[in-house]
């Protein structure tokens, strides 16, 4: 029932929880948006269609964060245990910011821009309050 869902942030997160990375594509100009948009900011068209991303991409830029907000501290991240966030360019061309797993966040000098990545879905929280975070890891 993919086609019937609204092009919204809520739908985007529902898809993530189903382990699908979904973009919206403008039917008028063909541009691709992740997270999806219902209104194309380039041609203002409201005619969108869903496009499922393959979940493959490469690292464009990144950081390893030692001092995070309280919810990340609660997850156990701190100066001794930093986490990595990066900008990923998908094979389809769109870019997305995501957690980068499976890299040496403690040794960020070893992380290379251009590294090929594949999507990973991080399901967190208790029953009834589940949330899925988008992540990528090296292929």
């Amino acid at each position, binding site marked *: 029932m993919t086609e019937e869902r609204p092009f919204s942030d809520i739908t985007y997160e529902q898809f993530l929880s189903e382990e699908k990375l979904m973009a919206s594509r403008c039917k008028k100009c063909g541009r691709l948006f*992740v997270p999806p948009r219902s209104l194309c900011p380039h041609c203002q068209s409201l005619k969108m269609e869903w496009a499922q991303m393959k979940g493959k991409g490469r690292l464009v830029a990144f950081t390893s*964060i030692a001092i995070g907000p309280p919810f990340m*501290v609660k997850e156990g991240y701190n100066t001794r245990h930093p986490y990595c966030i990066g900008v990923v360019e998908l094979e389809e061309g769109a870019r997305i910011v995501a957690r980068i797993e499976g890299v040496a966040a403690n040794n*960020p000098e070893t992380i290379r821009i251009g590294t090929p990545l594949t999507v990973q879905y991080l399901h967190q929280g208790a029953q009834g309050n589940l949330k899925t975070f988008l992540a990528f890891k090296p292929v």
Partner: protein
Amino acid sequence: MLRERKLGRGVAVVGAGLSKFGVFKDKNSKDLFTEAFQEMLASVDKGLEPKDIDALYLGNFTNDFFTHQAHWGPIIADLIGHTPKAATRTEGACASSGLAFREGVFAIASGFYDIVLVGGVEEMSKRTTSEVTEGLALASSPYEGQIGLTFPGCFAIMATAYFEKYGATRQHLMNVTVKSHNNARFNPKAQFNLSIRDIMDSRIERARSKGEPIPAWKDEQEFLLDPVVNPVVSWPLYLFDCCPISDGASCMLLVAEEIAKNFTDNPLHVAGIGQGSGLDLHAVDDLTFFEATRHAANEAFKMSGLNPEEIQFAEVHDCFSIAEIIHLEDLGFCKPGEGYKVVAEGITKLDGPKPINTSGGLKCKGHPVGATGTAQLYEVWKQLRGEAGKRQIPNPNLRVGAAHNLGGTGGTCTVTILERR
């Protein structure tokens, strides 16, 4: 193509005030604004009757979060005896008072008001670092904040993209930090009014008096490479690449140009103003510049008829060291990819051909976010009036200065050019 812009009538700056910036457990936003307001009153050469102020525009980002109190326009209006006249809060994240200045200019240029007070305030230090990080992240994109991306994180991401594209390194960021501290040493209102060398000396002295091993840093770079004194915040940004958490307030008095001589024989004129907005990090194709800055600068240059070479000095929004380098490029002071070289060559030093952040910048002066925009313009005011004391730019013909204020990761940006005629 941008249309040429002009004001309905000219606007002049005839007064300015700044509180001390820092961490003040015993002062709240009202106390800080009172300090700035008092100095502003004293700075009006021929005096101001405060009752003559027609309207107040006050920048504040998120005291709602930091102090659990919103609606700061009327609170400050009440503080200075301005009620029941108009008081408006402007919010543009760290560019909140850049917006206040701009709204004040428009209010006068429209002909509606003649005398307008603009300023900003922020009270951040009564929260923990982690909480402030969360508070500031309120200005990031929803997608980015939710996954744990912080403000230092956003600029760190830009830094890795910049390093990759142009070959700059962490050492180049250090040049910005050392320069900022050298300037702040001469700014008594700065949160950190001491040079890196001063900090090194005091650490050595402390170690000696405690009988601890004496640190053996050869120079400033070696000090900044020491992870004990300069730990990583969000790689490749370290503590000394980041502006501090600060409390502070600033304000400026704007009047219609035609009545400026009633207040001073030495007014500054608003030569150019510009504003831009920008996209989330993930939505830009190139992470090495801010489109919002380029747009705002273009608007301000068009209005003023000036070009980047004619801006003699500037305060730029150096929330992080990498940001200062990028702003130099976006403001047209050098070509893209050359900002880090310009800093390394000393061009942006106090006695260089294009002094940048003579106040010490956000890094050393402090960054009470809502107060920063008009605090930057306060520095331009001091320099153009020859009142900057030991940090006065050694150029007897100082005539044109600019301030660049950035909110979020380039979500809101203002560029303001002031001129002495």
